[in-house]
């Protein structure tokens, strides 16, 4: 499963898609990925940072949406306090 998690004051909101159905152009999967990509771009435009988190691998900061990612976590814009 692929997952986009967006942190917010309400806790993280999630968009999930079935990674195994990506290649087969399953309509539900395609729609979920489109939605995830739209939210990703919208949040990036608002200054959020995106991290690709995969088990057994170091965390990676990403600039572009990655539909093959196990999990993408989006953190809102940060400021020095």
């Amino acid at each position, binding site marked *: 499963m692929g997952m986009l*998690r967006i*942190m*917010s*004051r*309400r*806790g*993280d909101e999630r968009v999930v898609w079935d990674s195994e159905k990506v290649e087969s152009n399953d309509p539900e999967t395609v729609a979920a990925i489109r939605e995830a990509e739209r939210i990703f771009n919208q949040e990036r435009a608002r*200054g959020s*940072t995106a*991290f690709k*988190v995969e088990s057994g691998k*170091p*965390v*990676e*900061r990403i600039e572009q949406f990655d539909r093959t990612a196990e999990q993408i*976590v989006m*953190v*809102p*814009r*940060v*400021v*020095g*306090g």
Partner: protein
Amino acid sequence: MLQTLSLFLGIWLLFLLLAIYYLSQAPDGRVGRFRESVSEHLSAESRAKVLLRELLSENQYQQLIKFGYLEVNSPTIDSRIYRIPGSGGLVKVYERGCAVMELCLQPAEPLPDGDVVVMHKLMIEANEEEYLQKANHFAPGIISLRCQHL
């Protein structure tokens, strides 16, 4: 004396009940909104706890529960450790066991405490240089905010 105290207590309870009744009848539904807000907060904290459990190893999670902070090793500087408080406050930086500075960095919008811990962890592990650039630096021990766990 006891009778006077009972009388005051009775009057206080009466006012309290009247206030609750008044708020529940208010057209703008203030009690409903309050209940909604509390429920939203609890739900946010519970989601944040799930995120913590999923993104932290068992040892890291236990450290956070037991000591109230999470320690993250610097990916670029040997012997440097970032100590992230579990309930807000400054991140303490240690080198060879000595506190060398404190960092203040916060999300532009409020997040549940658990999400803030994850935010620091991800930023340190994935882009330490930018994390250090964005954070305000303080000498250790000068400022302490909500630092009951430090």
